[in-house]
């Protein structure tokens, strides 16, 4: 299994008096709440944490894109990946993801990714996402064209990376007479493309398609959903497309916290993880799903399942119980991942080892404990330990 450290780079110094005045830390939270001096300290601390992971033998480092919020300070994950490109030596740099379709010029991001791929000698992984609903308020993009633009931006970028230029691109949203990307990506035909998602049927089917076979990354969710969506990817490959998906095409992302004992881990993580789920992730339905963002089928599905994924007030106990986070002693955490891997066979694991307000000392200890006590056992796991289908049959 490949182990990635994942960072959101939250604004950890948020003045909590915001809570009575604003509906979310997205879209409407005034940027006067942001203090650049604290930002300077945070960015550098967070980059230190990611560089440490490279030294400790993580297989990859992952950053992502969100706009105009206190949840994650990476409107451009490319900037973070560029900062890491020369300071890291072995780890893959995974941009999971960039919202190519939000841009008027997705080719510019394709160029930037190609640059990072060249600078790092092929350590880049490119994630392609639509961006969450709130992004469509913050960038002015029309959510009703989100799916179509995402797909066209993807096609444009892949062609730009693989097709000899110059050529013209005649799309619905993008019109270019000269597509001729310099530099071309270091990896041939192009950097691996991943599709991170919270479980959209359209995204899973799109990623699993035989012409793509992109790694599907399930963003943190209750175990029941992780099981459903990761299995759906495999089923989709098998039944819809007639091939057996490799476990390398399956990834799971989750917050992880380790301390000496289960109880200590719970106590230490509690305020910081609850801050993430109850404050930073709190998004009204209207911001999360602007009209047209979900297909009619997905929306109907959503309505019947849950009115709002972030509506629930969490405690660390509910988060652990539902499997949304993994938290405990090294033994507990190692065991839980090993057992879940037996069932789901994900060969890529993204661990969010800093979350919410988790301070520098606890974060560093968490990263070190994970690297020394848990990671070696997980890195040894292969498809041979995956028993998913037999477990399913026994259910």
């Amino acid at each position, binding site marked *: 299994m490949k182990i990635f450290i994942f960072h959101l780079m939250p604004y950890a110094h948020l003045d909590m008096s915001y809570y009575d005045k604003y509906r979310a830390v997205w879209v409407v939270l005034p940027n006067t709440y942001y203090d650049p001096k604290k930002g300077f300290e945070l960015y550098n601390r967070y980059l230190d944490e990611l560089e440490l992971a490279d030294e400790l033998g993580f297989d990859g480092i992952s950053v992502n894109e969100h706009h105009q919020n206190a949840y994650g300070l990476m409107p451009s994950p490319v900037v973070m990946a560029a900062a890491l490109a020369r300071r890291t030596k072995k780890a893959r740099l995974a941009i999971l993801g960039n919202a190519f379709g939000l841009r008027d010029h997705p080719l510019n991001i394709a160029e930037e990714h190609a640059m990072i791929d060249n600078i790092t000698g092929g350590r880049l992984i490119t994630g392609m996402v639509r961006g969450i609903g709130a992004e469509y308020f913050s960038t002015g993009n029309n959510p009703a*064209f989100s799916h179509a633009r995402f797909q066209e931006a993807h096609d444009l970028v892949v062609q730009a990376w693989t097709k000899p230029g110059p050529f013209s691109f005649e799309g619905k949203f993008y019109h270019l007479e000269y597509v001729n990307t310099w530099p071309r990506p270091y990896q041939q035909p192009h950097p691996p493309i991943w599709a991170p998602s919270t479980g959209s049927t359209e995204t899973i089917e799109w990623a699993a398609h035989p012409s793509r076979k992109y790694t599907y990354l399930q963003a943190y969710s209750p175990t029941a959903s992780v099981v459903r969506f990761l299995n759906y990817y495999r089923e989709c490959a098998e039944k819809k497309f007639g091939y057996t998906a490799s476990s390398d095409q399956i990834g799971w992302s989750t917050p992880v916290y380790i301390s000496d004992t289960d109880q200590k881990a719970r106590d230490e993580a509690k305020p910081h993880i609850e801050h993430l789920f109850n404050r930073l992730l709190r998004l009204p339905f*209207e911001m999360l799903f602007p009209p047209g963002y979900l297909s*009619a089928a997905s929306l109907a599905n959503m309505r019947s399942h849950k009115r709002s994924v972030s509506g629930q007030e969490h405690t660390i106990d509910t988060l652990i119980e539902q499997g949304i986070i993994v938290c405990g002693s090294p033994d507990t955490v190692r065991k839980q991942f090993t057992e879940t891997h037996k069932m789901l066979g994900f060969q890529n694991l993204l661990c969010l080892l800093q979350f919410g307000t988790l301070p520098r000392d606890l974060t560093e200890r968490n990263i070190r404990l994970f690297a020394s006590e848990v990671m070696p056992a997980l890195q040894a796991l292969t498809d041979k330990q995956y028993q998913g289908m037999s477990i399913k049959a026994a259910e």
Partner: protein
Amino acid sequence: MTESAVIDLRGSKVHVQRFGRGEPLLFLHGLQGMSENEPGLLELSERYEIIAPDHPGFGRSDVSDNVDDVKDLAIFYLDLLDALKLDAVHVVGQCLGGWIAMEMAIYASHRFKSLTLVNSAGLRLKGVPRGDMFVCSEGELLKLLFAGEGAKAWLETWRSSPDREDIYERNRAAAAKFSWSPRLCNPKLDRWLHRVKVPTHVVWSEGNQVIPLAYGEALRDMIPGASLSKVGNAAHLVNLDQPKAFAREISQFVGRTAS
């Protein structure tokens, strides 16, 4: 009672309510879509033959891949007038419908007998903020749309069956498609409003917080010969807040221009 028909317009099915007697009056609905038997339209139908289509993607009309923006909608409705063999008609456009009607009139004023704009979208007035009906919560949305008591009943109608609920969501998605960005307007519209060469009346709710009265006044000033009347105790959905005043304002003006 309203009667409905489905018209196939070059492969795209348009659901049209058609009812009443008199000169034909094309009613173009707003971003919230349209229900059956809206009282304001029923009242108007005593003097006019109401032709009220669901825009592509709204209500029970097909989503059309050929109709991406309001200019497309305008051309689409010129096609519809051809299909219905209507040479020149009275047009009433509310909100999005008013925007469509202005785009049509800029190109083809000769297809109009009169134009009534009700709380119309389409214009950009720099520095006069509009209400955002997409970001707000449901409670805030109802406050934006209604001045009177009708808000809750309106929402309950849309929640009354899975079918109606689907239509409500279709309407929201279609509203975003046509008006998300630039929000509720074509920033270039003011350049061409001098080409609206048809008797025009503007009806505006005094309490409109989605598109404030200043927009109505600007439309009156920009469209040659246009007049303006205001409706009190009404918000953006004046047709539901004050159906009688809505019908009266329209029929008084249209009546003056009728042949």
